[in-house]
């Protein structure tokens, strides 16, 4: 019988939540790396027992942990993230030049085909790759040096490369997103990059339609249609049908178009999920009601999914990497909150129940579907 393994990164450690395909009884393992921030943890699509975790604190810096047994045991591996050459400057919050400084790894994206190859999105924004199981890392400098890097400015969370999407139909194509620079695409295996922000409109920058400077919160893709991208921007939910060459707003009837997380149904490429958040200052759901919104039309027409979710006095946030979707026939949706709850729906969002209620604030959620 199939099973699922949910990988949860929190502000004070990592947790592994396991269940069979019914997804109604859960085994909770953790905290792993207690006391450390786990920004992200993800398994290799090529070897589900190979996991990678980003572990950091302000005191002791960045570590990378690797597991070869599905998270039962871990070993620290390479954590030297050195920019290629003299990295120069980007813009600081006040508009002055600021030297590029490595701070942490926000996102780890294992290769679709090789368990030993993994990409890391870091703050200050850059893309790194390891081809030896995270033992050593090299920057792929074409992104940072493509031409607009000196104008990138951090969002409130820092100048972070938080989204990495590998195109399953084209190993040379990859998408990344940076707050607050925007989305970028390579078509030649990360040698060269171009901004893909045409159609984004952001009032908080001097030119709302600028080539870069947009605060992209997250981007999602369905593997069967890699040319279609969905984006939750700081404000606005967006859609591209041409691999990011242009974007259209699909916020439609959402109660607010602010939010962080966005994801796509495993079997229905036009079915997408967001968690609307009231505003960029309050960072909690409208009216104290935690609602996942689903569109079965690829945007514009949205329905609230509430059954089993708190509909009063709820003031948590759902961060950009804290939603995930399994690939079982009855597609499971998972998300974690800053209040420490991890919710699961085994039926594509119709019904929800908490797996755990009292973890530290959740930074990231990933799920593996196991045979």
């Amino acid at each position: 019988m199939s099973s699922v393994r949910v990988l949860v990164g929190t502000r004070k450690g990592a947790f592994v939540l396991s269940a069979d395909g019914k997804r109604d009884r859960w085994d909770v393992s953790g905290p792993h790396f207690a006391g450390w921030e786990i920004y992200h943890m993800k398994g290799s699509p090529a070897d589900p027992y190979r996991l990678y975790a980003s572990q950091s604190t302000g005191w002791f810096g960045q570590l990378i942990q690797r597991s070869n047994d599905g998270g039962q045991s871990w070993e620290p591996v390479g954590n030297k993230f050195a920019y290629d050459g003299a990295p120069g400057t980007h813009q600081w919050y006040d508009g002055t030049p600021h030297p590029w400084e490595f701070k942490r790894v926000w996102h780890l994206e294992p290769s679709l085909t090789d368990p030993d190859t993994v990409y890391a999105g870091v703050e200050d924004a850059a893309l790194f790759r390891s081809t030896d199981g995270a033992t050593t890392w090299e920057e792929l400098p074409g992104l940072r040096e493509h031409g607009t890097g000196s104008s990138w400015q951090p969002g409130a969370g820092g100048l972070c490369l938080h989204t990495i999407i590998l195109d399953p139909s084209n190993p040379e194509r990859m998408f990344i997103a940076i707050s607050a620079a925007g989305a970028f695409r390579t078509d030649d295996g990360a040698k060269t990059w171009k901004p893909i922000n045409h159609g984004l409109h952001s009032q908080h920058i001097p030119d709302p339609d600028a080539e870069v400077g947009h605060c992209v919160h997250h981007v999602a893709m369905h593997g069967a249609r890699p040319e279609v991208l969905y984006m939750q921007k700081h404000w606005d939910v967006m859609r591209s049908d041409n691999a990011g060459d242009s974007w259209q707003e699909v916020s439609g009837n959402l109660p607010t178009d602010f939010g962080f997380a966005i994801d796509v149904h495993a079997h229905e490429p036009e079915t997408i999920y967001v968690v609307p958040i009231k505003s960029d200052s309050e960072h909690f759901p409208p009216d104290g009601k935690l609602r996942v919104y689903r569109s079965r039309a690829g945007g514009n027409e949205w329905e609230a999914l509430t059954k089993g979710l708190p509909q009063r006095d709820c003031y948590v946030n759902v961060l950009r990497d804290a939603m995930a979707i399994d690939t079982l026939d009855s597609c499971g949706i998972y998300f974690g909150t800053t209040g420490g709850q991890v919710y699961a729906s085994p039926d594509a969002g119709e019904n929800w129940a908490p797996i755990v209620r009292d973890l530290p604030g959740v930074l990231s959620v990933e799920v593996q579907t196991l045979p």
Partner: protein
Amino acid sequence: MILVVLPAHLRTLAQVNGDVQLEIQGRATQRAVLDALESRYPMLRGTIRDQVTLERRPFLRFFACEEDLSFASPDAPLPDPVASGKEPFFIIGAIAGG
């Protein structure tokens, strides 16, 4: 022999119980102690000093003999009681968070 006291998180990471005893070849300095520490426990690389610049991480301090040695040159000799193993070399994580 030099005695090094690690913060709790780094003891867990290095899988050591209690203090660490290091043999140093040549003059005992901060750099020599940290080089020896990282050589024996490679998982500590980057957690005490930056791997590229080799600068002490900002929320860590080095104490010994009731003195703050954090801003001393990494190549300055450590106090004799530290070099002889009579007094430990403390690596301290800042008390922060309110």
